């Protein structure tokens, strides 16, 4: 199980291995602590230039929306009930900058956010395998299940970071371009800025949680291959296929089973009183997808011959 004689000299190790090798694994029978592994995994995910580029791109989404609405929106044109395809919350954003947070999340959730999560999740295991570092990671007595958990934690952290990036950027842009003040809800009631900020935070968490199911799918796909690009493309492909399925009304029978079905439930947090059914259902769907694909990833990970 632990062929410690196969330890490499230096150079090819991922930070996760380097951490465990330096601090704990050597000279001790105790497996490295989960927290230390997680910390180094987070470093691996977030110190990548690619991650910075994706977060920067996500931060740019609210800027585009804000500028478009501030300078190119002729008020009232979409007042007639909103034709299909028009952006949500258009009429509210111009009156209240905080709505740019909701509008940006609504705009980023169907595609931009899943795309970046697909990249990170698809890369998680396959990237290590491709770089030839996966077997060294497993040489350290960390265990495959543990490694999988740490990798998943890294992806989840990215889901949260990506969502918060959009939200914070939108808040800054919204405050800069539009007036701020009391916030009208979808039901027509008005709540104070303070309460609206709480709801905005809850909405961001809700959006981040909506991505968890996809993260698990990506993690599973990532265990199937040693080519990271294939895993990323497959995961993003899953999002696209799901979006197409959602668009076919004749398939409405399967829609409740798709992981994207409850994504827009975060809008319920903008009603009064807040109906919790859909939000809870969405969290349940995400949990189910995580359990199924997480278990599949575990089955694949613990079974496969790791030669790279």
């Amino acid at each position, binding site marked *: 199980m632990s062929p410690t004689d196969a330890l490499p000299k230096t150079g090819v190790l991922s930070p996760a291995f380097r951490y465990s090798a330096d601090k704990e694994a050597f000279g001790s029978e105790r497996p490295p602590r989960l927290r230390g592994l997680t910390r180094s995994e987070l470093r691996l995910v977030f110190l990548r230039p690619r991650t910075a580029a994706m977060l920067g791109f996500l931060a740019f989404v609210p800027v585009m929306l804000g500028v478009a609405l501030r300078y190119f929106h002729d008020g*009232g044109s*979409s*007042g*007639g*009930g*909103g*034709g*299909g*395809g*028009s952006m*949500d*919350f258009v*009429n*509210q954003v*111009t*009156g*209240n900058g905080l709505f740019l947070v*909701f509008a940006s999340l*609504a705009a980023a959730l169907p595609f931009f956010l899943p795309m970046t999560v697909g990249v990170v999740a698809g890369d998680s295991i396959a990237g290590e395998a491709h770089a*030839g570092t996966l077997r060294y990671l497993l040489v350290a007595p960390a265990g495959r299940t543990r490694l999988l958990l740490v990798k998943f934690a890294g992806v989840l952290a990215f889901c949260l970071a990506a969502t918060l990036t959009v939200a914070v950027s939108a808040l800054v842009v919204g405050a800069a371009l539009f007036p701020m*003040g*009391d916030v*009208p*809800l*979808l*039901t*027509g*009631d*008005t709540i104070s800025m303070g309460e609206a900020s709480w709801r905005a935070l809850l909405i961001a968490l809700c959006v981040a949680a909506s991505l968890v199911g996809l993260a698990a799918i990506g993690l599973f796909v990532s265990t199937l291959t*040693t080519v990271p690009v294939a895993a990323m493309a497959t995961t993003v492909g899953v999002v696209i296929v799901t979006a197409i399925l959602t668009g076919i*009304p004749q398939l*409405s029978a399967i829609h409740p089973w798709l992981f994207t079905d409850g994504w*827009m439930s975060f*809008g*319920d947090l*903008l*009603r009064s*009183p807040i*109906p919790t*059914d859909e939000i809870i259902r969405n969290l349940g769907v995400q949990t*189910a997808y995580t*359990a*199924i*694909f*997480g*278990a*599949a990833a*575990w*089955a*694949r990970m*613990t*079974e*496969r*011959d790791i*030669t*790279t």
Partner: protein
Amino acid sequence: MTRTTRRSVPWRFAVPAAIAAATVGAVTFGPSAFADDSHPGLPEQTAEQLVAKVAAARADALTGTVRIDTDLGLPALPGKAGGNGPQALLSGTNKLQVALDGPDRQRIGIMSDLAEYNVIHNGRDVWTYDSRAHAVTHGTFDHGRSDVASLVPTTPQDAARQLLDLVGPTTDVRVDGTGRVAGHDVYKLRFAPKAQGSLIAAATVFVDAKTGVPLRVTVDTVKGGKPAIDIGFENVSYDKPAAGTFDFKPPAGARVEEATPNEARPEAPGTPGTPGTPAAPTGERAEPGLLGEGWATVVELPAGGEAKDATGLLGKLGKPVPGGTLINTRLLNVLGTDSGRIFVGAVDADTLQRIAAQR
């Protein structure tokens, strides 16, 4: 670089498979608040007793979520995705938040993704708020016609009330067992037309065994399949709605339109919330003509603006029949005659044509 050894699928993959199977099973066969298949044992009641109970039921205060499934068999209309407001109730599944407090205060919110359409009736004031357009309309009701609830059959109570009007020699009423709706034990009260010619096979009212409040109404068509209309509470509470629920102030930045009393009425859905009032609301402004009676009631839409639009639509969707154009749905037939008149009814094509010819 990679060397893979082929072998049979390992036992570990049974774990995700088992989780998937368990989840699907639990969701498919587990309890659902909306369609609970249990049959609680309740004391026997005759149909007459139940009808009296429904008629006497007083739900002075109530809050809850209503789900409306409408399947009229209409072709999917383009632009439906942008639909907001009462028109959305014409097809698919919609959810509404409902709050009632006495006859003078009602609030209904039709929820859609990231948007909501609210109708608030408080005393003489009627407000509507469309969040997508960020627009408010305001109107006041004249006294004597202030019962907004009867105009918008969006709750099971409204639907049931209209069914009760049908009780009489034309209707067969009987108790059809028990069930559960939104966690409440209910009796099923079944209304069926005695005469041939209606497209409605039966309508079932699910009556709360304790309070007599109708919690769900389904309308089955003679063509079978799932109900054409299924309107019921997903959750319901008889507590008084929170204070301030009915105090509506237009939100900042919203476009506010003052409407004349007639237009203040929320544009009611063209859906017949129930049999007996097929498609009544849309044309009510100019008093549509009612022909026939009971289940075979046919409405003649008044000529003029709306009817003219409808004639154009008829030409596109309908099929030609002797003397006009017919649109056939599961629940309704619409006949546009060559003379430009429009008849709507929950009756089969022959009956509709016969009644139209008598005019």
